[in-house]
Structures are given as structure tokens and as C-alpha cells.
């Protein structure tokens, strides 16, 4: 059996590991357009700060690929997929045969149309790859006025600004929405976060966009002009607005695409033997109860694993995921789970705030918890995400949750509540299923 995996990151490697779990001899080829073996992509901002170094940024051990017998093709873009002949065509014209294909191509950064944006410049760019981080690190050394502009106040933008700040630059975040992390946070938590950023030398210009980037004769930025007409000095401009599924190469392959790749419960696309997972796919959102693109690391791993299991010939379904994220801004941990800004009046919101240190918000739909924000104190947040993902009724615990006694739910219910298998399995769950049993692992 010949397996080909497009994408050498979380979804792809999780898929590869799952294939190896059930198929010890199959030929696995991993294709990546980057020149590095798998690295911790979201940690490129920590790389700027120096918290992650050239030694620790690698996602897997040095001998991971050899140990698992994965063939690695680096620095080659996939141009197209011929699903009829079952071939993957790469940049240099080579055609690679496959029996089962996994597409974990992730996302490409989205740049809103801005006058003067010049990706060729050494002082300007997006922020999703290791190369981007290296470029920015060099740019910071060359910055004369020590001023940087980050377009986008989402996770990418925030982490990029933290990294730039650590390199000694003064940073301004330009965000279209009225607050930073606008999709995940509400007004109160957004303000607390913004204040924390401001205290640490990062300015936030919310409700603003960059309309024009002024360039000097060598194509590097000198200043930006905002929608309000204000002009800000800029040595470095980083655009971190968001990513779009990287699916251009699937054109003409017959794989159904609607924003992202459409997959069924087994993570198979509309074409037989072509599977997909990660940031490029549309999966079922258990909170909003509709198909959605949820681009986060835990789901990419789960999707890759389910796809890999099916590719190796063992039937398995994926029940869908939900959005959740965790970020730390200058010592302030923030966790957002599920639906945090309800649009519907039928959903009740409960809040607890202790000055600017601790903030908790719960969103209930009837008796069911559907979303939460925890800021400052995040102990036990995993229990909340398990409760939310499983849609458990827990309205009577709302006061205890708000006061931070999240563990009281576990104490009362002991641990049988987690027996519902939601994409992951608790130890011992597989012991009656011989093909999943741990004796098959090694």
C-alpha cells in the first residue's frame, strides 16, 4: 500500500502515526513545500522571544522519520492531484503514485488588499512560517526607528507583536474589530487584554485598518496610513489577519471544496481514497451545529488520526469538534472555549470579575453549557471543555464554576461522565477492540 501525505505538520504527522499504528509495512511519503522537518508552527513567535530556540522548535525527535519509515520530500510544492490516475504532481514535474492520499495542506495567510504591500521586502510580510520568523528577526536588527505595525489583532497578530516587542521594538496593533481577539473575547476580557498589552509597550488601534503603506525607494516601509487618516511610522509591517485553506492545487481534481475541503465522517473527501484533515477542511462544529473551518492544533491532530486510521483500513468516525484556544499575554493566561459571544437572546450569560486579575464568563443554552471564557485563573479549564464538548447539563454548577470551583463537578460525578468517546479515547477504552488494543501499538 502506498500512502502519500501532503503537509508536514500537525494533521499530516498525526495521520502518519495513525497509519503506522495499523500498517507497519506500507510505504508512507510525506511532501512539504518547506525546507524544514516538522516544527512547532504556532511557536514561531516564541522563537522571536528566544523562549524556543533552534534546538527546541522541532515538533518530533530527530529520528522520527527514519524510525517510522516515512519518506520525506522537502521544499517541493504539490502542483496538482490527478485523482483518476491516482498521482500527485509536484513542482519539478515528478509524479508520485498513491493508493491513499491525505491532504493536510493547512492554510495560506490572507492579506487584505492594501496599497503598497510588498511581500518581497525584507521588512514586511506575513507570519505563519519559520522562514517568516527568521525574516522578522533579521528585520528587527535593521529597524532604524524601532517601530513596528502589526495588522490584525487575532492570535497570530498578538503573538507576532509580543515577539517583536521582545526584540526591542515599539509595536502598534491595527485591528478592524472593536477589540483584540475580537472573535473569541468579549468586551470586558478584550479590554483587560488590551490594557495588559499597552502596559507592556504594545499599542492597540482598534476599529482601524491600514489603507496605505508608504515605501521608500528600496521597497521597504517607512510609514502606514490608517483609515482615520493618521500616519504612523513603521520600520516593519507584519500582516497577521488570518489564514484561508490552502486548496488551490486541488483544482480540477474533483474534490469538492466549499471554502475548505468537504469531508465525510471518515474524513474522506468527495473523491474515493483521498482523505483530508487540519486547517484546510470543513468539519462539523458541535457547538454551532453546522459545518465550519476550525483551525486549531488539537482538532488537526484528531482529524489526522481518524483519517489515518481509515486509510489503514480500520473504520472509524469523527464526530466533529469545537473551537477552543489558550493564549498567554504577558503572564495573563486566557482560555476561550466554544461559543463566547452569543448572538441569540435565548442563551444566558453569567459573569464573574475580580478587578483585572480574574474574569470568568459562562454561556448557557438552557441547561447546557456551550461556551466559556477564563482569564487569569485557568485551573480546571479542561474539565469545562470536556463538559462543553459533550453537551452536559450543568446549570446547577454555575455558581461554583464562576467562583473557580470547577473540580466540584468532577468530585460529584466522579469520572464516568467522560466515558462518552469524543474523538479521543481514555485509557482502557480500547481493550475490547482487538485492533485498537495497545498490544498492537508496538
Amino acid at each position, binding site marked *: 500500500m502506498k500512502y502519500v501525505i501532503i503537509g508536514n505538520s500537525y494533521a499530516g504527522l*498525526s495521520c502518519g502515526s495513525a497509519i503506522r499504528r495499523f500498517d507497519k509495512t506500507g510505504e508512507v511519503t510525506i511532501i512539504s513545500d518547506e525546507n524544514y522537518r516538522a516544527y*512547532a*508552527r*504556532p*511557536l514561531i513567535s*516564541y522563537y522571536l522571544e528566544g*523562549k*524556543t530556540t533552534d534546538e*527546541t*522548535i*522541532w*515538533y*518530533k525527535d530527530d529520528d522520527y522519520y527514519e524510525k517510522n519509515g516515512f519518506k520525506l520530500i522537502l521544499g517541493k510544492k504539490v502542483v496538482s492531484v490527478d485523482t483518476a490516475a491516482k498521482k500527485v504532481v509536484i513542482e519539478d514535474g515528478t509524479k508520485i503514485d498513491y493508493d491513499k492520499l491525505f491532504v493536510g495542506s493547512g492554510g495560506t495567510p490572507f492579506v487584505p488588499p492594501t496599497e503598497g504591500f510588498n511581500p518581497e521586502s525584507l521588512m514586511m510580510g506575513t507570519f505563519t512560517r519559520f522562514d517568516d520568523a527568521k525574516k522578522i528577526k533579521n528585520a528587527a536588527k535593521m529597524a532604524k526607528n524601532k517601530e513596528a505595525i502589526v495588522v490584525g489583532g487575532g492570535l497570530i497578530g498578538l503573538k507576532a507583536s509580543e515577539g517583536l516587542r521582545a526584540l526591542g521594538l515599539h509595536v502598534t496593533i491595527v485591528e478592524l474589530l472593536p477589540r483584540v481577539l475580537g472573535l473569541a473575547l468579549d468586551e470586558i476580557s478584550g479590554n483587560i487584554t488590551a490594557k495588559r498589552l499597552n502596559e507592556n509597550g504594545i499599542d492597540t488601534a482598534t476599529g482601524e485598518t491600514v489603507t496605505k503603506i508608504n515605501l521608500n525607494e528600496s521597497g521597504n516601509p517607512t510609514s502606514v496610513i490608517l483609515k482615520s487618516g493618521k500616519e504612523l511610522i513603521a520600520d516593519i509591517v507584519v500582516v497577521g489577519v488570518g489564514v484561508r485553506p490552502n486548496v488551490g492545487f486541488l483544482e480540477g481534481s474533483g474534490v469538492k471544496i466549499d471554502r475548505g475541503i468537504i469531508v465525510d465522517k471518515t474524513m474522506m473527501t468527495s473523491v474515493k481514497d483521498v482523505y483530508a484533515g487540519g486547517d484546510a477542511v470543513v468539519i462539523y462544529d458541535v457547538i454551532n451545529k453546522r459545518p465550519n473551518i476550525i483551525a486549531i*492544533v*488539537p482538532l488537526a*491532530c*484528531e482529524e489526522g*488520526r481518524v483519517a489515518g486510521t481509515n486509510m489503514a483500513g480500520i473504520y472509524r468516525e469523527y464526530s466533529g469538534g469545537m473551537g*477552543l*484556544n*489558550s*493564549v*498567554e499575554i504577558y503572564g495573563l*493566561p486566557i*482560555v476561550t*472555549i466554544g461559543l463566547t459571544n452569543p448572538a441569540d437572546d435565548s442563551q444566558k450569560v453569567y459573569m464573574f470579575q475580580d478587578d483585572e486579575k480574574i474574569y470568568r464568563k459562562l454561556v448557557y443554552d438552557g441547561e447546557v453549557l456551550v461556551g466559556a471564557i477564563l482569564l487569569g485563573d*485557568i*485551573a*480546571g*479549564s*479542561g*474539565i469545562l*471543555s*470536556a463538559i462543553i464538548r459533550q453537551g452536559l447539563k450543568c446549570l446547577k454548577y454555575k455558581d461554583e464554576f464562576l467562583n473557580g*470551583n*470547577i*473540580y*466540584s463537578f*468532577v*468530585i*460529584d460525578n*466522579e*469520572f*464516568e461522565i*467522560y*466515558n462518552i468517546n469524543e*474523538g*479521543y*479515547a*481514555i*485509557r*482502557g*477504552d*480500547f*481493550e*475490547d477492540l482487538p485492533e*485498537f488494543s*495497545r498490544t498492537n*501499538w*508496538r
Partner: protein
Amino acid sequence: MNKNKLTNLKEDLKKNQVEIMLYPSKCDGCENEGFTACVKACETHMNEKYGSKYTGARINIKKKADKFFPVICRNCEEAPCVDACMPGARYKDMETGWTITNYKKCVGCWMCVMSCPFGAIERAKEDHFASKCDGCVDDDTPKCVAACKKGALKRIGIKNYSYERRLMIAKKIYGPYIKSGVKG
């Protein structure tokens, strides 16, 4: 459940398929002693094992009214904390079957804290790493199990673990209709 399917601890130990089983109803939080034995034992041992940089107990006792509950890693088969770990610091050790952590890679993003359905991963004080039980697979008996005199923690083989866990769930649901049939 067929009793023949269950294995004995000696065999499981050889295959490294051993778990720490919890019996929360037996835990009394060591109220009379003035300190929790398992937490203290773990703290001391972790200090020896990982040095002063990555110290802190990996087990915790949570209290609600008069009920106590030990919170410790359940060593999930497909661990959400491994999925969520962005730097790849947490991984499944194929030899021992335990989910362990390479603290050198951990940056303190708290993704695992957010993902653990048991709340078993906690931030260690103000430090920037998420500490988690590593099962103490090098020892014959983990220090917390040895320290617990109440029988709330027990070393047990994977098959028995799976069976007992399901039995506990069944007991919870059907209560008096089921008699516990397993010892050791």
C-alpha cells in the same frame, strides 16, 4: 465479563502495561495526619527526579464538603494533551505506554491545561511549564501509591484497569444490582 480475560499484575508489569487506579470513595484526604501523604511523597520524589527547576507535585487532592477526590493523570489512550501540545513536549512513550513530558520543550502555552478532561494538568505555581504525572514507571511502586495507606491509589494492570473502570461506571448507574466480582 470473563474472568479469564483478566491478567495478573506480574504479567502486566513485564509488559509495562500498568496503570494507577483511583478509588475516590476510599480517599479521606488524610485529614487526621495534617498533610496529604501522596502529595508530599510525590513532591519529594519529583524534586529528586527532575531537579529544582521542574518541581511540584503531580498529584492533587481536591475537596468538596466532606468528599475528597485525588486528581491524577489517567493516561488516556489517545491523550488530548498530546494532541493539544504545540511544541511537541508531551508525547506517548511507546515502551512504557505512559504519556510523558519533555519539560525542556514546554513553553507554558496552557493548551494541555485547557484540554485535559480530568483537570489533571495544572500550572506549577508561577512557573512556565505544565507538570503532569509520568507514572513513575522506573519504580516498582510509584511513591504516591506506596504512601497511600487508605487504598485509594492502586497499581493495576491495563486489562483489570479497563474492567474495573467500567464496573465503577456500571455501579454508579445500576448501583445495588451489581456485585463487585474482582479482587486484586
